[in-house]
């Protein structure tokens, strides 16, 4: 009985997802509905034959204990199936079938079933039931299935009428054969007017008449009838040939007749199987009982193609090929199961056990979606589990999408909604995956901190595979992203600051830029140069400040001169320029003298320039700039190579020739910068 039930559930699972266009049998190639009148038994197929069903054409294997079906290479739970979920959710929101049309349809189907009941002894029950089929087919909820059944019955009638024709033709052939035999016998008895008396005699005639049908060679062997007479006549030969033809035709006609009957039965069986797979159990029972009435062989084995999907289902469950009566029983069992499921649902809902009620209704719907008990279930009762069902379907969808945050929220919501809800498996699944993902992220952070970026990325990838929406992923990925962004930004900033000659800004963030360009040799060299030079400038500025504070005569001039040397080297440095300006204000008298000397020298006014340089030297006697400039002017006016005394060299006298004859001509003074 258990095997029987499993087979039933497996078969129903197939029909669940393939309500209207399932692959019922592996029918022969000539079977499709649009190939001719011989296939009109499945005329209700509205879809194109080549169209695949939603989940593929492969037949599933069903494990009823876990509600898991193996289909198209994938394992799925009937609770998770999107198509089923959508249908079931729609069903929960639909009003019950309580219209007059619904009631009339249910009543008609019920009446047909009652008429076809084995307990009904009415001799006219067949005709009365057939008459009701078009009535039922008019209702949209029938999906013209009763029409298809009526067509199948009609084809059986046609087939039976052909049988009568066959009988008449067989009788005609037999009559003709008998007539020909008699005629042949008569012909064989024929005597020639020129017959040899020696060969005559009744005994020989009788002998010829017996042999004639067997080939007519007796006369020739015995020196019998002459040509054209008796068995040697063309007429006799024609009679024999015709008898052989009739024999052959008769055999062929018998074979054709047997084939036609088998085909009619097979087509009817196909229709029964299709109704069953479509979970149209009432139609299944109707068709099976019509079959029994029409063929009187209900215990005959169904002609299922060997190794076909349906054959495997029934074969594995029953251990053999099913009969029409088997399917009848299976359909009755399914209907009973659905009725019990609905009763249980009502009971559980009344007790407030929504979780179990939901499951029982789901099972009942999966099996008996088209049964009156399911269709007439009041909407207010269905609505009691509707919210729960929505949350359940959302939960399964969120688990499929690995959105574990949403899943946990839904689990909590379901626990509040239904006190009998068992969330253990779901919660375990959510927690396991979230923890695995978190562990990968923790490992990724550790690897990041150790600078093992590639390995860290691998860990992040694993964490994302387990839980794509893990909010902690952003935290883990952010350092990598920021690191890359920071480096790119730092390099861009570095180039921009170089273009802007804003070396101070680079100096202020030299560590950041150093990290960004550590593997970029040209930029690294630039950074080193900038840092080195700015350290030099800053040191000089600091020294100038320190020098300025000293209570030493000429300190401010000394500081100014130090800074001026760097200003010439680094004219773009703002801080250096600011410091130079500060010192220029402090040493303005000295600076003005030097500046005027410079201007005068450039205009060729050597005397005045020299006077201003002497003034600068008077202000700051240790001025290197003033001394150097004076020396350069003196070198032009009185070249030093034959100087007897040179203040610019510290007052030492040269020992060059003193005779005027050897003195070189005085170099012409030209407008030049004495500070060059």
């Amino acid at each position: 009985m258990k095997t029987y039930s499993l087979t039933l559930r497996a078969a129903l699972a197939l029909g669940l997802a393939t309500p209207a266009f399932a692959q019922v049998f592996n029918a022969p190639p000539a079977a499709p509905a649009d190939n001719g009148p011989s296939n009109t038994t499945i005329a209700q197929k509205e879809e194109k034959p080549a169209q695949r069903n939603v989940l593929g054409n492969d037949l599933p294997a069903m494990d009823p204990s876990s509600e898991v079906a193996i289909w198209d290479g994938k394992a799925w739970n009937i609770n998770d199936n999107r198509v089923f979920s959508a249908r079931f959710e729609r069903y929960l929101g639909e009003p019950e079938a309580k219209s007059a049309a619904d009631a009339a349809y249910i009543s008609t189907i019920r009446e047909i079933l009652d008429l076809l009941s084995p307990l009904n002894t009415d001799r006219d029950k067949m005709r009365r039931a057939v008459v009701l089929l078009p009535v039922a087919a008019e209702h949209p909820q029938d999906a013209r299935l009763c029409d298809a059944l009526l067509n199948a019955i009609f084809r059986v009638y046609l087939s039976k009428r052909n049988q009568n024709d066959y009988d008449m033709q067989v009788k005609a052939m037999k009559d003709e054969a008998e007539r020909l035999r008699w005629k042949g016998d008569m012909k064989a008895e024929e005597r020639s007017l020129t017959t040899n008396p020696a060969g005559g005699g009744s005994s020989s005639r009788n002998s010829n008449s017996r042999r004639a049908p067997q080939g007519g060679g007796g006369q020739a062997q015995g020196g019998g009838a002459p040509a054209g007479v008796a068995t040697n006549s063309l007429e006799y030969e024609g009679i024999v040939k015709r008898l052989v033809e009739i024999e052959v035709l008769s055999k062929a006609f018998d074979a054709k007749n047997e084939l036609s009957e088998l085909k009619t039965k097979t087509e009817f069986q196909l229709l029964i199987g299709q109704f069953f797979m479509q979970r149209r159990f009432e139609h299944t029972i109707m068709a099976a009982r019509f079959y029994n009435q029409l063929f009187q062989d209900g215990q005959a084995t169904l002609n299922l193609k060997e190794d076909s999907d349906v054959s495997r289902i029934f074969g594995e469950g029953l251990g053999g090929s099913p009969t029409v009566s088997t399917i009848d029983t299976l359909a009755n069992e399914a209907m009973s199961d659905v009725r019990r499921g609905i009763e249980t649902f009502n009971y559980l809902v009344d007790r407030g056990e929504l979780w179990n009620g939901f499951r029982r209704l789901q099972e009942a719907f999966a099996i008996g979606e088209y049964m009156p008990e399911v269709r007439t279930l009041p909407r207010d009762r269905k609505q009691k589990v509707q919210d729960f069902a929505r949350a359940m379907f959302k939960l399964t969808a969120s688990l499929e999408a690995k959105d574990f945050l949403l899943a946990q929220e839904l689990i909590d919501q379901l626990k509040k909604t239904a006190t009998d809800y068992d969330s253990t498996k779901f919660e375990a699944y959510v927690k396991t995956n979230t923890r695995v993902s978190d562990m990968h992220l923790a490992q990724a952070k550790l690897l990041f901190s150790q600078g093992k970026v590639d390995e860290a990325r691998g860990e992040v990838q694993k964490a994302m595979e387990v839980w794509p929406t893990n909010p902690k992923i952003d935290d883990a990925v952010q350092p990598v992203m920021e690191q890359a962004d920071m480096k790119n930004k730092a390099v861009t900033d570095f180039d921009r600051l170089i273009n802007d000659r804003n070396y101070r800004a680079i100096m202020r963030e030299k560590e950041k830029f150093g990290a960004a360009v550590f593997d970029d040799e040209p930029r690294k060299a630039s950074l080193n140069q900038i840092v080195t030079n700015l350290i030099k400038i800053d040191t000089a500025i600091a020294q100038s400040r320190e020098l300025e504070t000293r209570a030493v005569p000429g300190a401010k001039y000394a500081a100014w001169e130090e800074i001026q040397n760097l200003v010439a080297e680094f004219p773009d440095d703002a801080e250096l320029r600011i410091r130079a300006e500060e010192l220029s204000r402090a040493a303005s008298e000295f600076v003005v003298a030097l500046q005027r000397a410079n201007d005068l020298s450039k205009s060729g006014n050597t005397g005045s320039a020299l006077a201003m340089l002497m003034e600068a030297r008077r202000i700051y006697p240790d001025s290197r700039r003033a001394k150097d400039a004076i020396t350069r002017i003196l070198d032009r006016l009185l070249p030093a190579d034959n100087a007897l005394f040179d203040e610019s060299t510290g007052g030492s006298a040269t020992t060059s020739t003193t005779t005027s004859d050897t003195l070189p001509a005085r170099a012409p003074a030209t407008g030049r910068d004495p500070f060059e």
Partner: protein
Amino acid sequence: MARRAQSSVSPVVLLIGLAFLAAAAIGGFFMLGKGSKPDYPPLNVEDFRKNSLSQRGNMYYLEGTVDRRDRVTAQGQIITLLPGADGKEAPIPVFLPAGLKGDNIESGYRLRVVVEINKDGLPEARSIVK
């Protein structure tokens, strides 16, 4: 009683005479002690510092204290002179050619020279005034 006889020279006249004699003595002292100035205008130091080229070819009388000898060659020497009586004016350069016998000039020496502003705008001594 006998009447005293009055003096024959008035004291006022005597004082005026004494003042005249004193002034003559002082003037003679200076005239005889310093020697006579050459007949050249004194060099305007401020003008010289601003633009000596504008004074090119002119002869001036220049007096001041030698601050330092900047360079001495066989052709002559360039010194730093602090013009003015007290030597507190801004320094100016003076070229003393070798023929003027200025070899013994030292820092702090009081120098009176007649100079010509040469083509470089440099005062070039033409004679040393004793």
